[in-house]
């Protein structure tokens, strides 16, 4: 069951749209904020609420990188995995993160603190290599500078 707060927030956004389907992305973002990720059960609840089929809504949920269909840690590190970053030292950043956190792509640290994911171009090529933690973007990365960034997220 969607909580009263979740319903309320979705209804608020709905006011901006002429048809209920249009709220799909916002609704998924809202429940993800409350629940951390979108389980099959959650997906079905949202689909029922906005009048879509689960398969249709899953098409939306699985299309966007920042909607999570599997459980994630408290913080999500999204490392840009596109051509500009490849040229500017992506490999070193990826290796450092993996060994430092002890996880590969799609995995979560044992303490549930970080999940490491690749992401398509973040649109900050001028600062490549780039990563994003939760909503914050960091550019001009060097392996040495990563520790300081990770420290900010407990």
């Amino acid at each position, binding site marked *: 069951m969607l909580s009263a707060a979740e319903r309320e927030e979705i209804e608020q956004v709905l006011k901006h749209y002429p048809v209920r389907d249009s709220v799909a992305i916002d609704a998924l973002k809202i429940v993800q904020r409350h629940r951390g990720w979108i389980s*099959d059960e959650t997906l079905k609840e949202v689909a029922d609420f906005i009048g879509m*089929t*689960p*398969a*249709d*809504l*899953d*098409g939306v*949920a*699985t*299309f966007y990188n920042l909607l999570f269909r599997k459980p994630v840690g408290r913080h999500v590190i999204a490392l840009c995995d596109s051509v500009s970053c490849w040229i500017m030292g992506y490999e070193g950043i990826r290796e450092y993160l993996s060994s430092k956190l002890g996880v590969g792509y799609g995995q979560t640290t044992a303490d549930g603190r970080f999940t490491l994911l690749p992401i398509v171009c973040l649109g900050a090529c001028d600062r490549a290599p780039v990563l994003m933690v939760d909503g914050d973007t960091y550019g001009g990365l060097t392996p040495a500078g990563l520790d300081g960034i990770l420290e900010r997220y407990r």
Partner: protein
Amino acid sequence: MADLVKLTIDGKALEVEPGTLVIDAAKRVGIEVPAFCYWEGLSLQAACRMCLVEVEKAPKLMTACTLPAAEGMVVRTETPQVAQARKSTLEFLLTNHPLDCPVCDAGGECELQDMVFRYGAGESRFQETKYHVEEKQWSPVVFFDRPRCILCFRCVRICDEGLGVRALGIVNRGVTSEIAPNRGDHLECDECGACIDICPVGALNSGIYRYRTRPWEMDHAGTICTHCSNGCKTTLGVRGGTRIIRGNNRDRSGINGEFLCIKGRYAYDFYNHPERLQSPLMRRNGKLEPVSWADALSAVARRFSETKERGGKFAVIGSNHTTNEENYYLQKFARQVLGTGNIDHHRTGDAAALREALQGAPGSLATVSDLYGRKAVLVIGAHLALEQPLLAFTLRANYRHHQARVYVVTEGPVREDKIAAVSVRAERGRELEALESLREPLRGEPELVILFSDAIQGEAVGKLVSFGRSLGIPVQYVCLLDYSNSRGAVDMGLVPGAGGLELDEMKAAQDIDVFWVVGANPFESGRPAAKDAFLVVQDLLPTETVQLADVVLPAASRYEKAGTVTSVTGEVQGFRAAVQVMGAKPDLEIIGLIGKQMGVAAGMGPWSPEAVFEEIRKTVPGYDLPPAVIAAGGAAQAVWSDGAAGGRRRTGTVRSDRNGLFASGTLGRYSKILHSVLESRLDGRS
């Protein structure tokens, strides 16, 4: 109508209605523009890029499937540039497509294979490992092999738009995109298999057909589905003249186009049920024992002759499934040879009352094309999507293409509610009262088609017709019936004549001497009151009625004989035998042989389907139809006119079996496939 648009395609000048897509315009002058994702009647996708054509003055190639014809447009569909573009498109489509054509079910009838053959995309520049995921089984009848999928989304659209089921969606993105059902790993849907037939490649497979044959090894026989009354054409693929391998309507012929439900596509499997009757049986010392045809026929003939001579009483019960020719011949035999008016069949809708109410208003019966073309449709007392699947499909198409206004009066929620302008809930028997609330909106419609189930019967039919007349607009009607030749049974006169007994009366009468039951199960729930009556039954399977019989004559099923049937909307369609089952004979032949044995064959005339149809053309009102049209696989419209046979019910009730998608009366019990799908257990009616 707006002016026609003039354009030129490959040097051929033509005129089309504004809004016509170039791909459809090309078809009219015999030019096929290849396309994987385009499907006439569904929403546009433009995903596959195969239909690219050259348009003069346009800077680059255009997709013919989304391009409306414009005045003065000059289109070229097969230039070197177009061929190169299509070849490249194919190279991309084959990036991850496995080249397992030798074992793929679609091999030989695969659109991708045909196109690669045509454009010669034999070599690929891609050397990367192909993206692979394992095949999935979604239900007993549907398998999905992702690597073969070219993401045309026809399946998603037919399920959503055509069937109104919305069972499928697309998950993930790019190369990992995948068709997925709502429940992730299994389907919960109508199990109609439309997604399989519409798939241009071998990604969606039929669980019944897969790995059983190559398509070119089958013979194909066009038949009409033997289950519900809608009259869908189903083409059976047959091997060796004895095995039906599959049913489908891939060529979109018949009145159903691409539509078939689970019954039409899969539920032919009763024909080789282990309990299928393959020898005549006679009761000896209380037990049914196999006997020869000669013994069985002479026993029946002897009893019929004796009973007739001493003025005994016959009761003849016909079928909702047998052909027009068989029904006609049976009632003629009963009336002329046996001299009885006690003839009836299980009536599932009050078609006779409608005919009577419409006296003086010929042309008031709607056809399936009326249902697709009329501006407004009213459905009373039926869950159309489950009980009359083709009519529901046609109505949805009308709503989608012409924005028809749909009105629904039913007991509970129905799938048509989603497309309805107004849905009204009414208790059983109070539908006519509920109709009053729709009077004003219906008056505002330019025309109307009314579909009604057995909820409206007897006097209520007359009241409904009065209501229709009071609207002051042209109104047409469809009296919904259950089975594949329910309408033909009425038209051919399987109804009591003056003074004849009706079905319920026959069952209740103490003094019947001989019951003759042809393809029906009237004693499903109990013996007839006349306990000592001699019971002759012609049927396929050991039904309750067969168990009570004195003589059983094994009959051929629909798929083993030729003839015509009439759909609920009056289309008369023909079919020919697809297979032969040893021991069984068509009912027409059985009746003929009984007549021969009795020495009355000369008076009855030949019992070939063609000869009987000729007689029907001459004697049955509304059936003077062109045999050539029917023989060529077309549908000829029976005209239900004044003066057609009577048979208005005096007593008892008309009763629909309310079969859902996974039931089909007695016959449905013998289809394993119908019961194999999960939904057959979810649907309380099967």
